[in-house]
């Protein structure tokens, strides 16, 4: 017993250390300033969505106003940075996200008191309302929130440096973000292994029973909201330092929606789920957003697909495969996965074709409508003629039929494999 737990600890240490080393090494591979900025954004979002999952995944609280804590942390950090003026130094700047964390914590105490009186749907609605309230107020107080222009600052204070860093170059900022993200992630993981973390799970599963084993569920929720607000605030502090500007948008409903999306897509049932979600969605937002103006539609459809087909998120898909692998059953599914790839690709190609054609025609992404040739997906097409439409629809249809057909067989295999898996276990 003792030995095995020590082994677990050692492999866990290796895993954490490996992740940290990998994160720190990434700028060696991705050198352009854009890619490093992208990595920075990912690091911040990882912390933010992990903090969100403390509510959604661990305590079962669906919040539509989590950006409030994030924004409060960002503004507090920025104001502190500006108040420091010349008195600060790189070391102080490096520690500033802690100010954001405190602000998030304070916000959690005040708002948590109001919101955690109820769970479930009511909680979701209250957070929505409070989020709206704070977002609306943020524009009314330009003194605090900087009005439309936001509050900006400079993270490089003076000429001195701390261990050779002054955080000016983006790479140094990236290093700082990685360190903070690492500390926060470790802390959030540790929290799941404490009495409070476990009771949060208990309250999520069965609040009534939690009361009858002696726990005040409101108090458990409140504490989780406060702690989650704290980490969200730290993420906000990192944003403030990274972009050196904070606007009212950081605390509005859109930001809350994005973090919900990330967390859910990544998988709320696993600690590492939100990390996957944050990385994936950030990349998609910026890369798919750069490729097509229809990205919001693709996003919405992808989200709906995940809700209906994989409500456990990507992490749960990975977990299932790992279970299969451990049980030695992965090989049984692999041919089916490979067989599925082609029809799914065809289906996707068809759908993308239809969507892009529609955008080119209706939203005027190309040069006008009518018979003129327009570039769609790198091809010169005449939108006014039926040919491209028929082709796209035909590909979609073929993809659908093939997916159904091959998918049906894969589904049968899947069910029997799962049955074997659970049969082995039971």
């Amino acid at each position: 017993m003792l030995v095995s737990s020590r082994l677990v600890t050692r492999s866990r240490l290796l895993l954490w250390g490996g992740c940290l080393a990998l994160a720190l090494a990434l700028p060696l591979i991705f050198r352009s300033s854009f890619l490093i900025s992208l990595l920075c954004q990912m690091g911040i979002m990882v912390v933010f969505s992990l903090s969100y999952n403390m509510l959604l995944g661990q305590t079962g609280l669906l919040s539509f106003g989590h950006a409030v804590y994030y924004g409060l942390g960002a503004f507090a950090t920025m104001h502190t940075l500006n108040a420091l003026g010349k008195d600060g130094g790189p070391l102080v700047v490096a520690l500033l996200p802690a100010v954001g964390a405190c602000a998030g914590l304070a916000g959690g105490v005040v708002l948590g008191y109001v919101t955690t009186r109820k769970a479930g749907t009511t909680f979701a609605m209250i957070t929505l309302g409070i989020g709206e309230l704070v977002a609306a107020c943020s524009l009314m107080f330009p003194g605090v929130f900087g009005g439309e222009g936001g509050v900006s600052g400079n993270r490089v204070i003076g000429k001195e440096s701390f261990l050779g860093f002054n955080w000016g170059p983006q790479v140094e900022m990236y290093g700082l973000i990685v360190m903070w993200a690492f500390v926060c992630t470790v802390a959030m993981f540790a929290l799941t292994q404490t009495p409070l973390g476990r009771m949060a799970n208990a309250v999520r599963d069965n609040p009534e029973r939690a009361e009858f084993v002696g726990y005040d569920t409101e108090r458990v929720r409140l504490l989780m909201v406060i702690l989650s607000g704290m980490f969200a605030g730290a993420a906000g502090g990192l944003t403030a330092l990274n972009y050196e500007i904070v606007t009212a948008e950081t605390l509005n409903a859109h930001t809350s929606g994005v973090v919900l999306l990330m967390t859910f897509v990544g998988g709320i049932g696993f600690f590492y789920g939100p990390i996957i979600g944050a990385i994936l969605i950030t990349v998609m937002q910026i890369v798919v957003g750069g490729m097509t103006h229809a990205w919001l539609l693709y996003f919405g459809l992808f989200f709906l697909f995940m809700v209906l087909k994989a409500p456990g998120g990507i992490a749960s898909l990975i977990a299932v495969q790992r279970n299969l692998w451990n049980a030695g059953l992965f090989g049984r599914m692999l041919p089916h996965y490979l067989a599925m790839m082609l029809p799914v690709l065809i289906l996707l190609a068809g759908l993308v074709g239809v969507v892009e054609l529609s955008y080119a025609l209706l939203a005027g992404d190309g040069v006008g409508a009518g018979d003129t040739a327009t570039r769609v997906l790198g091809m010169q097409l005449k939108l006014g003629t039926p040919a491209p439409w028929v082709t796209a629809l035909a590909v979609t249809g073929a993809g659908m039929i093939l997916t159904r057909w091959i998918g049906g067989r894969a589904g049968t295999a899947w069910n029997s494999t799962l049955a074997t898996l659970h049969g082995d276990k039971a």
Partner: protein
Amino acid sequence: MKSPLFNRLALAASVMLVGGSACAQVKIAYIDPLSGPFANVGEAGLKGFKEAAEILVNQKGGIMGQKLEFTGFDNKGSPQETQLQLKAAIDQGFRFVTLGNGSGAAHSLIDAVNKWNARNPDKTVLFFNYAAVDPTLTNEKCSFWHFRFDANTEMKMEAISNFMEKDKTIKKLFIIGQDYAHGHQVAKYTKEMLAAKRKDIKIVGEDLHPIGRVKDFAPYIAKIKASGADTVMTGNWGNDLSLLIKAAKDAGLKARFFTYYAGGLGTPQAMGAAGENQVIQLTEWHMNVPTKNTEKFALDFNKKYPGVWFYYLRVNNMVQMVAQAMNTAKSTDPKAVALALEDMRMPVDTGEVWMRKSDHQAMQPLYISIFSKADGKTVKHDSEGTGYGWKTLATISQRDSQLPTSCIMERP
């Protein structure tokens, strides 16, 4: 649509290898919302820039034989994303960026450009602002690396107040605005300037409402009506403006509305008949200003892009001025271009545009016009197919909107 992802990655690599070698064209990155709720504004701007570059520059020989080209970068309206897109543009070798929508994004960009230039003096970037009107951008936060081609809020109010000074029918004024920086500024300047110019105008009320959250303006109109105001000053835009005008018509309020943004991008359509003879706007141009080339340019544009109505003359001005600056400087180095732009005087269709050196703010003639039924004569063209168009009430000369600046510019 090419795939910018691969371009971007490939360029990111090649830029590092080659270090931004001479390109066959002069490239300007257009960073504005191209998806989401404000995408229509961003897309209209991008089309305007592309069209202007083609017709006004490239068909006339280009810039030192090179073509001027605009590439869209979608900042989704977010200040944070603006910075990411700036980095993306810089990686791809862009040295000039333009942005217009949202003061938040503009502030973010001016900060980012300043910091980038300070930290990378060998790869400087220049920011052309075509529509963000927060006065601080050319006052407290002015920068050598920023040029504004639109009149700012304060200048626009100066022009309007000069008009009001002469219009003796205005006796009681009501100020209503969105509760954020722009609305606050409009209210502040209105009061300050009228106090200096027309002491007899009584400000009978002042209301601020949260931006984009009011569905029914009837209670506000009731209040305006109760105050007895004959004129309303508002900085509202978008739905907050359309709904205000509609509610005024419903309640039979006969006051005139002085606005900043009634003229374009869907507002005339949303307002429709409700705005007739009640809505006054201030712009640098409208369809019924008699001009030599712009009228044809606008008509061609509207025909080429159905549903997108030509609105920004300043886009054309900016493209011409930037091209001339590059030609004069015989260089596409941002610093040289910036120096050439300073103090430039450019004859355009509506008169002369002057880029003031002290704060990099463009000075240009402005027009005050009222929404009236299109009659084919003074109101020759209607606006956005509504049957109503803009009738010029007054022309504000370039000098009449000039204001001193508090800018103390750090010059490289």
